[in-house]
């Protein structure tokens, strides 16, 4: 019994109420620590971490070098000041971060829970809870640790939990305690059972253990466990035994490790710094060799004037010292201010994200937040987005949207562009109506009012056939508690249309039908399960008639209809198709009248099946099958799983930007696919491959088959499409040679149509493919050699949906893509189950929604609406990337230009490490003279305005392809920098060596030379930044001109007589500036150097712009031309997608669609059995009230929201927080189409400006003609009307 515990825990033994016993095992306590430092360790640990940065160590090393007098070619303050600055800024930032982590840890650790200690309930902090303690949980409390449920206030030891924090599912789950313990009730103080179970692991759905108590063994399963992170719902109180605590809990085990995220630019920068360091060593070596030669040939002879110092008595040692001296003066190629500036720029970008009003959601009063300030430019390079579904894409709210009743469809909004329809007012008609229910078609209400038989029956079915529980707090104030939100929506709909479900007992259902109370006898519930995909109830109405009501997936239900329904079935089928095409979840409804005899006989067989011990399930479903036949079709319902606002549009825009979107959800396959359709990731032209094999072999086989099919399909489509595409693209290509990228793409596609040879074929497959993979298959797909197979297949698809995945799998998928694709990944989610994914992706985005804040806390960026993602990526990300790249290019250029002058000078000063410039200049150059203009550019620059980058998602591509700053660009920059340094040294050299002042004094003295070169340098780099800056705000002007002024004024101040008197040994340049800069010849030299440096750059840029313009250049150009042409129009507030959704919907509808039934969406068997057994009938009012109020309050929110912003109809765009990508006109072409319009022709928009096809090209063409644009920009509504 007392086995020695080995370091890796093999099994866990926990004895209830026995801390002493449990302490032997040294299990982790419930204390959670995510912070890194405490007050004492902060300084050493933080400094240690900081000096792990290559750059910091490098500067420390330099500092040490500078302290050696023989080597020091620069005084050490040139390094100390910036290094200290950098270290302290970083330290402060780290300290702040850690402080917040401490705070959140403390918050969690100090949550109170009630622990049973020595028979008394005592309030304890979470962190003091130990394994083996018995905790009392109350309703709506978070579970503090992984608990074994011992007893509950509810009958049969049941309790309900919500696991949203864990797996993202918001439906309730039932847990039941072992019966022996549940009998104890709250007398647990003497309970001393011992649990032996598996060691801590991250499997959320599995638990395996045994309870030993009073000489008996009881098996324990996951059904007995309450996991940390769950919330107790609907249960007054329960008791649990702590099994796993703190870091051992499944929640924490699943959260993955925290990794420090770096951007790819960061990594590139570090590589480049290493290269530069290598370069530095080379330069140092060259110069040291030069020094050796010089010392031997010249220096040794020059000793009469400059003897070698006593310790340095040979030329080799001299050369060795000279090497280090040069390392010091050349180190400014990577000034430390690079790192500081990068941080500052990122911080600025983060603030812009925080400040962006268009990412502010006024409903939830949340602004976007950049929680990590170091990843901004990576936002401009994202290629893969991994998205959670529930709460991220959807609001997780169902609304009864449409229905079809005996061939008549209701709920269609006829004119999507017309005025917003008014939501129906049910109150005069029905005092019990739920005020937050919205329905817009009053034909249905009329139909109810006139007493249409079918309509009544339809709603009666909805009010009877469900497993919803109701609570009536006071007369007429009903709250429903549904196992799935779908059911809740249906029952609420029935309630509003006059068929109010009031209450139920195990044997009855009480309703109020059209104001008249009716009580039905509930004879049977034929519960839902995944295979049946339907549920039925059999009720006896007060008149004694027995009727079976059935609702279910159309596929199964339509087969079981009475033949006489054929005609109705066809009509309803059409309706179902329409609904499905709109992305709605559908259910078909039917009933069947049963005679007393039929009921009796069936009831008999039901009872016997129920009693069967073996194959009970099978027998039952066979029995159910018997009775659910020959039913009469009533109609169909369509429920909208309400997407978040703007989701389809966002996805469309993002995929136009070449971003691939993967949905990773814990939900069922059907749900996930359905959402895929409704958010337009999948369309009806998409070829969907479903991988659901249970073995490695079958998964492999399925993946291969899918791939073969893809190749096959893409060949056929390419064959058909390609000539047309080429013909269409060609004129523009040859016409103006505008875009090379497009040519490249064309070639790629051509390659794709060549005979398939290798994996590169898969990369180039162009087709509408989608992959749907199940969790269990995914597990196989992520194994060893299957990885590549999976990646190959999945990456050829436009959309990938992974369903039933665990949090850890989510992370694994992300890691997989990171590993195989070397692409930047972004994970977006809202629940605790997304945390691991958010952490492992390059960028984690948390949606601050309803599911707690774990995701947000783990994320790098957070906001409240999925649709803000497009603005985050396409606007902020793109700008950040652009700015960062421009900044880096310029920065490296500037420093090479600055530093390499020393190298050239080395050849003329005996390689003595003499600096060209004054020391003060060297210290201040990077910090003062040139820092602000480049920072201003790095923070404020814009190539095209935000609206344009949303209009032309293709503008995002350079970031993904990493075009703006890579090794090639780096070499171009440093080449330009070296060229500049050559000019800056040799022009003054050539001019000044013989020049004199106009009073005859030679100009070739060192100080004049230094001032001339430095001034030329400052002017050249200022001109260069002026050329690089594309967006001159006031701040840029101030910075550029201010820096120039500061250079001159600081120089004059430092060389003034007054200061010299105080520090004669420091300021030996006194009077030099005045004497130098009064000479016209000096200015001629500076002008000449500037011209030689800038003219080629200018010519090159102009030619590049003319010959090879980037899309951004073109857009920018058009924009400018347009600005000139007309007065600046008012900012367009309305969204471009006004009506876009509805138009594309109708288009999809016309295409017809595959049906996706809603009833497949419940996650597990319903509460049917619980209801009929009466087990859960003693729901305490407290529990229910609080539960229901929570849920219905979120319904209220949604419905209110719906009222204002109904779906994607116009109102959705009128919101201020709509991202407004501002292309005008209501009749935007369907998004899937605009892909070709936009993607295919980057140069198109410009040519289509003639305004010949206004409806078609308004999305892409910026300015059709003056009137149309200005009118439509200012008055989107009228424009819509106009173009219609």
């Amino acid at each position, binding site marked *: 019994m007392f086995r020695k515990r080995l370091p890796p825990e093999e099994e866990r033994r926990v004895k209830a109420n026995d801390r002493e016993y449990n302490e032997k095992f040294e299990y982790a306590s419930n204390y959670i620590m995510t912070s890194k430092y405490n007050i004492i360790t902060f300084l050493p640990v933080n400094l240690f971490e900081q000096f792990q940065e290559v750059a910091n160590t490098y500067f420390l090393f330099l500092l040490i070098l500078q302290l050696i007098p023989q080597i020091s070619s620069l005084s050490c303050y040139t390094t100390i000041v910036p290094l200290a600055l950098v270290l302290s800024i970083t330290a402060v930032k780290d300290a702040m971060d850690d402080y917040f982590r401490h705070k959140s840890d403390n918050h969690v650790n100090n949550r109170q829970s009630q622990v049973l200690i020595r028979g008394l309930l005592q309030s304890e902090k979470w962190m003091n809870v130990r394994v083996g303690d018995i905790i009392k949980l109350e309703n709506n409390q978070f579970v503090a640790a992984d608990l074994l449920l011992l007893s509950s206030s509810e009958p049969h030891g049941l309790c309900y939990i919500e696991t949203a924090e864990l797996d993202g599912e918001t439906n309730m789950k039932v847990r039941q305690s072992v019966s022996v313990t549940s009998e104890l009730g709250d007398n647990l103080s003497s309970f001393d059972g011992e649990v032996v179970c598996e060691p801590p692991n991250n499997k959320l759905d599995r638990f395996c253990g045994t309870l030993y108590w009073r000489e008996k063994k009881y098996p324990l399963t996951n059904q007995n466990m309450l996991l940390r992170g769950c919330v107790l719902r609907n249960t007054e109180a329960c008791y649990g035994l702590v099994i796993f605590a703190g870091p051992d809990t499944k929640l924490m085990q699943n959260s993955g490790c925290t990794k420090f995220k770096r951007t790819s630019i960061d990594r590139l920068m570090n590589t480049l710094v290493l290269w530069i360091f290598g370069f530095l060593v080379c330069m140092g070596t060259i110069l040291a060799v030069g020094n050796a030669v010089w010392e031997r040939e*010249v*220096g040794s002879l*020059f000793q009469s*004037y*400059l*003897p070698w110092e006593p310790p340095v008595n040979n030329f080799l040692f001299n050369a060795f010292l000279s090497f280090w001296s040069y390392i010091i003066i050349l180190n400014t190629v990577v000034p430390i201010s690079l790192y500081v500036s990068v941080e500052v720029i990122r911080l600025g970008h983060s603030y*812009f994200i925080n*400040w962006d*009003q268009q990412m502010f959601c*006024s*409903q939830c009063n949340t*602004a976007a937040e950049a929680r990590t300030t170091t990843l901004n430019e990576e936002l401009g390079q994202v290629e893969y987005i991994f998205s959670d579904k529930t709460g991220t894409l959807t609001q997780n709210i169902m609304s009864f949207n449409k229905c079809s009743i005996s061939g008549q469809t209701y709920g269609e909004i006829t004119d999507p562009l017309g005025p917003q329809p008014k939501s129906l007012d049910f109150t005069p008609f029905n005092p019990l109506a739920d005020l937050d229910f919205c329905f817009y078609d009053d034909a249905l209400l009329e139909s109810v009012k006139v007493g249409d038989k079918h309509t009544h029956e339809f709603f009666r079915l909805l009010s009877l056939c469900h497993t919803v529980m109701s609570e009536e707090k006071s007369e007429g104030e009903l709250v429903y508690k549904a196992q799935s939100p779908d059911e809740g929506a249906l029952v609420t709909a029935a309630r509003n249309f006059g068929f109010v479900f009031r209450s139920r007992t195990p044997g009855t259902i009480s309703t109020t039908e059209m104001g008249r109370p009716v009580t039905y006898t509930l004879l049977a519930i034929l519960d839902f399960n995944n295979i049946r995909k339907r549920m039925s109830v059999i009720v006896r109405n007060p008149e004694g008639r027995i009727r079976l009501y059935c609702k279910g997936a159309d596929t199964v239900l339509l087969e079981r209809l009475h033949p006489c329904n054929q005609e109705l079935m066809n009509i309803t089928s059409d309706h179902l198709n329409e609904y499905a095409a709109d992305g709605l979840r559908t259910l078909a409804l039917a009933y069947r009248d049963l005679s007393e005899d039929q009921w009796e006989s069936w009831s008999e067989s039901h009872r016997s099946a129920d009693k069967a011990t073996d194959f009970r399930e099978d027998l039952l479903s066979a029995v159910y099958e018997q009775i659910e036949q020959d039913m009469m079709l009533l109609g169909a319902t369509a429920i909208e799983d309400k997407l978040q606002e703007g989701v389809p549009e966002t996805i469309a825009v993002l995929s136009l930007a070449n971003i691939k979107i993967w949905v990773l959800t814990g939900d069922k396959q059907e749900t996930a696919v359905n959402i895929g359709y409704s958010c337009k990731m999948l369309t009806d032209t998409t070829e969907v491959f479903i991988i659901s094999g249970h073995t490695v072999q079958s998964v492999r086989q399925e993946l291969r088959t899918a791939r073969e099919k893809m190749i096959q399909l893409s060949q056929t489509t390419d064959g058909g499409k390609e000539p047309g595409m080429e013909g269409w693209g060609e004129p523009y290509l040859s016409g*103006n040679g505008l875009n090379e990228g497009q040519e490249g793409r064309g070639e790629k596609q051509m390659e794709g149509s060549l005979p398939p040879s290798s994996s590169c074929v898969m990369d180039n497959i162009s087709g509408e493919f989608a992959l749907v993979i199940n969790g269990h298959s995914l597990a196989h797909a992520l194994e060893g050699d299957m990885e590549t197979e999976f990646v190959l297949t999945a990456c050829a698809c436009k959309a990938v949906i992974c369903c039933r995945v665990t949090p850890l799998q989510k992370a694994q998928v992300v890691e997989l893509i990171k590993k195989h694709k070397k692409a930047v990944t972004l994970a977006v989610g809202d629940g605790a189950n997304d945390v691991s994914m958010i952490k492992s992706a390059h960028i984690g985005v948390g949606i601050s929604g309803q599911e707690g804040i774990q995701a947000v806390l783990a994320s790098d960026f957070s906001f409240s609406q999925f649709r803000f993602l497009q603005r985050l990526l396409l606007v902020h990300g793109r700008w950040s990337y652009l700015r960062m790249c421009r900044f880096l290019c310029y920065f490296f250029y500037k420093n090479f230009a600055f530093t390499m002058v020393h190298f050239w000078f080395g050849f003329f*000063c*005996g390689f*003595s490490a*003499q600096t060209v410039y004054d020391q003060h200049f060297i210290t201040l150059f990077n910090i003062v003279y040139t820092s602000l203009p480049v920072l201003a550019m790095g923070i*404020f620059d814009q190539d095209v305005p935000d609206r344009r980058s949303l209009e032309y998602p293709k503008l995002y591509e350079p970031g993904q392809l990493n075009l703006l700053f890579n090794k090639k660009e780096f070499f171009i920059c440093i080449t330009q920098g070296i060229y500049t340094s050559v000019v800056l040294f040799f*022009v003054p050299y*050539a001019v000044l*060596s*013989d*020049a*004199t*002042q*106009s*009073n*005859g*004094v030679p100009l*070739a*003295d*060192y100080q004049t030379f230094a001032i001339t070169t430095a001034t030329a340098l400052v002017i050249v780099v200022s001109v260069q930044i002026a050329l690089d800056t*594309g967006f*001159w*705000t006031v701040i840029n002007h101030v910075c550029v001109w201010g820096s120039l002024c500061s250079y001159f004024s600081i120089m004059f101040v430092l060389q003034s*007589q007054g200061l*010299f008197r105080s520090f*004669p*040994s420091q300021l030996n340049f006194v*009077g*030099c500036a005045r*004497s130098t800069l009064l000479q*016209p*010849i000096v200015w*001629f030299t500076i002008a000449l150097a500037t*011209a030689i440096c800038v*003219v080629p750059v*200018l*010519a090159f*840029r*102009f030619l590049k*712009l*003319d*010959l090879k*313009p980037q899309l951004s250049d073109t857009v920018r*150009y058009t924009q*400018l*031309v347009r600005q000139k042409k007309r007065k600046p129009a008012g900012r367009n507030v309305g969204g471009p997608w006004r009506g876009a959704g509805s138009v594309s919907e109708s288009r999809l509808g016309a295409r017809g669609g595959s049906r996706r039934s809603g009833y497949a969406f419940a996650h597990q068997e319903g509460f049917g059995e619980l209801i009929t057994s009466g087990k859960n009938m003693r729901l305490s009012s407290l529990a229910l009230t609080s539960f229901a109020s929570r849920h219905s309050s979120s319904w209220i929110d949604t419905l209110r929201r719906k009222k*204002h912003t109904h779906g994607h109809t116009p109102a959705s765009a009128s919101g201020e927080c709509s991202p407004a990508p501002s292309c005008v006109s209501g009749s935007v072409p369907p998004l899937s189409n605009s892909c070709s319009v936009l993607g295919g022709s980057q140069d198109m928009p410009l*040519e289509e400006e003639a305004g010949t096809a206004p409806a078609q090209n308004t999305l892409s063409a910026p300015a059709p003609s003056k009137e149309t644009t200005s009118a439509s920009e200012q008055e989107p509504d009228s424009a819509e009307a106009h173009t219609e």
Partner: protein
Amino acid sequence: MVKEEQETANRPDNTAFTQQRLPAWQPMLSAGIVIPGFVLIGLAFIGIGVALFVTTRSIQVLELDYSGVEQSSPCFKCSDTSTKNCVCNMNFNLDKLFEGPVFFYYGLSNYFQNFRRYGVSKDLDQLSGNLDNFENPTDDCVPFQYDANKKPIVPCGAVANSIFNDTFKLYQIIGGTKKPVPLDGKGIAWWTDYNIKNRNPSVTPLKNAFNGTVQPSNWPKPAYELDPTDPANNGFINQDFLVWMRRAALPNFRKLYRRIAEEDYAQGLPAGNYSLEIAYNYPVLSFDGRKKVVLSNVSWMGGKNEFLGIAYLVIGSLCVVMSVVMLIVYAKFKFPDEE
């Protein structure tokens, strides 16, 4: 519509700055700017280039190398370091008026005044008259900090120690007689060097300040006796000393020695024969250095400088050529919707 009412505390400020909508000038390298710009720059450069070139052509320069490397050189005898107080004469002839004011320079080649260790080897505090540094010169001056007797050297350091000590006298030969050309040594150093940077200690007589110090080993006279003719030209503000201490940027340099602008020579040196008498003291041949004397006049832009004019002309014409090229390219590949 409803949103306005829900204006809330968390809403970010709607300012042009926070929303990144600051009004901005967005320049673009459009043809309308670049091509005329190039033409203008080109023309301006050509204009300046012509002006510079013409100006520089009018400047006269005369260089005389007197290092005495070749045996034919009159100073060859002096190039042997063992001869002390050697004097040699260089004769030259001007065939036309050398317009004044004429500046008299000495030039050194392959002389590394810009060597780092050489450059730092001086005590700026000492030179600014700080008496503390007379007793304790800075370590930078090593090995010219103290002499063998541990006495401080003033002025210390390699720069001061290596002061150029050749002296020149110029004679015009008129009918076989030597007529001395007056050489003006006033104001040849920088104003700031003379008035601000270097100062003598405020001790009178100056000699007392130097008590307890020794002169640099290469110096024949102490600092306070550099110019016996003018008491104000001694110590650290001696003009020749100041000129030498302002170190050159490049290994080949010249420094102003005297001005010729007085008496008969105010208009310049008339045509004729001249003789330059050189007191040859400064050894340069040991490190393959060269010494020369340069006579030059200046224009508004200083001394002769052909490079600048030519460079301006070249760059200017390249700009014009580029503008033509760009015009052609632009005409061929202009933006599609250019009007």
